[in-house]
C-alpha cells in the first residue's frame, strides 16, 4: 500500500514539474496593497478569462511589501496606496490606476456625523478619549489602525497625523475587513479604510464638513483622497504592460467605478 501511495505522489509531482518550463513565459505577478488587491484580483480574473495564454496572479501583503517585492524582483508589478518615498522613487516608477478616498467609519449608532482634521488627529493621538468631547454620547473612543506597512495607514498619517504619532494603545489590525467588522460591532470604535470597502453597515462620517461621496472624492473636495498606484521597476515586460493597458482601459475602469473607486481614464 505504501508503494502505491509513493507512486501516486511521484506522478503528482511529475505533473507539477511538467509545467515548470512554460510558466515563466506568460505570467505576471502583482503584489502589494491590501486595499488595492481585492480590486486588482477582480480585474485579473477578468483578464485571465479573456487571455488564456497569460496568467496574472494578485496577492496582498501591504503597500510597502509590494514595493519591496518589485525592488527585489519577486513581483512584476507592485500595488501601492501611498506615494513612494524619495529613496523608492529613485529606483521605481508608478502608474495611477484609480483614485480612492479614505473613509472614516464609526458604529451605526454613533451620533457623530463629522469630525475636523484636528479632532481626528486628537483621537488617534490618544489625546481625545471620550466621544462626548467631539459631539457624541458619553463613552470611550477606541481608535483602530492598520499595520505600519499599510499604504492606507501611511496616507492617513501623512494627511491627518502630520508629525504626531498614532497612539501606541490604538488597536492594530492587518486587514480592512476586520477594521470594518470591529467598527460594526463596537459602539466606541473608529477606524479608517478605503471608501470602496465601507460596506452597508458602518457609518462613514464627513471630514472637515465634506462627506466621502463618490462625487466629492472625484472632484477632490473630500480631503482624504489618494491615488492607487501600480509600481514598476524599469520597463515592464510585455505581458505586464498588456495587463496594465487592460487595467487602464474603459471596461476595466468601469468595473472599478462600480466597486466604489474613482476612475482615472
Amino acid at each position: 500500500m505504501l508503494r502505491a501511495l509513493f507512486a501516486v505522489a511521484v506522478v503528482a509531482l511529475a505533473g507539477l514539474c511538467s509545467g515548470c518550463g512554460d510558466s515563466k513565459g506568460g505570467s505576471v505577478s502583482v503584489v502589494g496593497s491590501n486595499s488595492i488587491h481585492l480590486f486588482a484580483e477582480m480585474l485579473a480574473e477578468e483578464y485571465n478569462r479573456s487571455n488564456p495564454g497569460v496568467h496574472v496572479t494578485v496577492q496582498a501583503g501591504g503597500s510597502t511589501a509590494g514595493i519591496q517585492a518589485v525592488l527585489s524582483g519577486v513581483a512584476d508589478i507592485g500595488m501601492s496606496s501611498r506615494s513612494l518615498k524619495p529613496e523608492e522613487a529613485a529606483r521605481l516608477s508608478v502608474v495611477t490606476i484609480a483614485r480612492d478616498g479614505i473613509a472614516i467609519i464609526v458604529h451605526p449608532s454613533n451620533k457623530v456625523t463629522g469630525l475636523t482634521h484636528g479632532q481626528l488627529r486628537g483621537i488617534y493621538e490618544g489625546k481625545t478619549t471620550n466621544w462626548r468631547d467631539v459631539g457624541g454620547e458619553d463613552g470611550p473612543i477606541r481608535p483602530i489602525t492598520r499595520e505600519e506597512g499599510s499604504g492606507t495607514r501611511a496616507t492617513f498619517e501623512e494627511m491627518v497625523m502630520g508629525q504626531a504619532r498614532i497612539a501606541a494603545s490604538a488597536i492594530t489590525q492587518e486587514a480592512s475587513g476586520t477594521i470594518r467588522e470591529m467598527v460594526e460591532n463596537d459602539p466606541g470604535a473608529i477606524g479608517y479604510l478605503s471608501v470602496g470597502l465601507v460596506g452597508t453597515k458602518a457609518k462613514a462620517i464627513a471630514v472637515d464638513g465634506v462627506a466621502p461621496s463618490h462625487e466629492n472624492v472625484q472632484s477632490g473636495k473630500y480631503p482624504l483622497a489618494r491615488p492607487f498606484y501600480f509600481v514598476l521597476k524599469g520597463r515592464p515586460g510585455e505581458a505586464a504592460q498588456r495587463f496594465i493597458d487592460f487595467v487602464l482601459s474603459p471596461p476595466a475602469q468601469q468595473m472599478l467605478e462600480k466597486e466604489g473607486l474613482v476612475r482615472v481614464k
Partner: protein
Amino acid sequence: MRREKLIAVALAALALTAVSGLAVITAFIFKEGFPLMVKVGFKEFIFSSEWYPREGHFGIFPMIVGSLAVTAGAMAIGVVFGVGVAVLLTQFCPPRLVAILKPAIELLAGIPSVVYGFMGVVVLVPFIREHLGGSGFSVLAASIVLGIMVLPTVISISVDALQAVPRPYYEGSIALGATEWQTTHMVMVRAARSGIIAAVILGMGRAIGETMAVIMVAGNTIALPTSPLSAVRTLTSNIALEMGYAAGDHRAALFATGVILFLVIMVLNTAALALSRRRAKGAR
C-alpha cells in the same frame, strides 16, 4: 556486505541533510538578528518600550510583556484543566470512556489555529466586550484561546507521566487504607511530578509560539498592557505582522526577536529534558 555499506552511507547522507538544514536555519537567524541587537544595544532592545521601526526605535519590551502575560494566562487554564483531565483519565475514568475521550482530545490538537482565532473573534471577544468592558480584544481573550490550544499537549504528556508511575505505588497506598483520591494527590501526582511539570513547560513553549490565533484576538497594540482587558501584541504576532514589508534594520530586528524566542525555547526545553531525566531516575 557492499549493499549494507551503501545503505549506511545513504542513511548518513540523509542525516547530514537534516542536520545541515536545521543548522542553516539556526545560523541564519542568529546571523541576521544578533548584529542588530548589538547595534541597538541589548538593554535598549529588550527593555525599551518604543517600537517605532521607521524612526529606528527597536524596543520590544511591550511585546515581551505581552507574550509573558498571554502565556501565563494560558498556562493558568492549561494547568488546571490539563492536569485535572489527565488525572481523571488515568485514575478515575472507566476504560470505555477513555477510548472516546482520548481521541477527542487529540482532535482538539488538530484544529487549525486560524479556526480557534476565528471562534475567539466571533464568540469570545464580543462576550468580553459586553460583559467585562474594553474592546474585547485583550490579554484575557488570547489567554483563553491559547489555554484551550495547549490542552492536548499538557494532557497527553501528563497522562504519559501518570501512567509511568509504577503500579505498586498505587496498590501500596490503597492497601494502607487511603481512598483513590488521597492516593492520587498524595502519591501518584507526587511521583509523576517531574513529568507533569515537563508537560506544563512544553505547553508553555507552544503557547509562546502561537501566532495566528493571537493576532486575531489580542488587539496588537504596541503599548504595554496594564490589565487583563488591555489589548496586547506578542513577540510572534510582531514578527508575523511586519515581516512582509520589513527591510534592512527593521527586518534584522524581527530576526533578533526570533533569536530571543529561540533562546527562550532552548531554556524551556533544557528544563523539560532535565525534569524527565529526573523522572526516569526516580522511577528506578
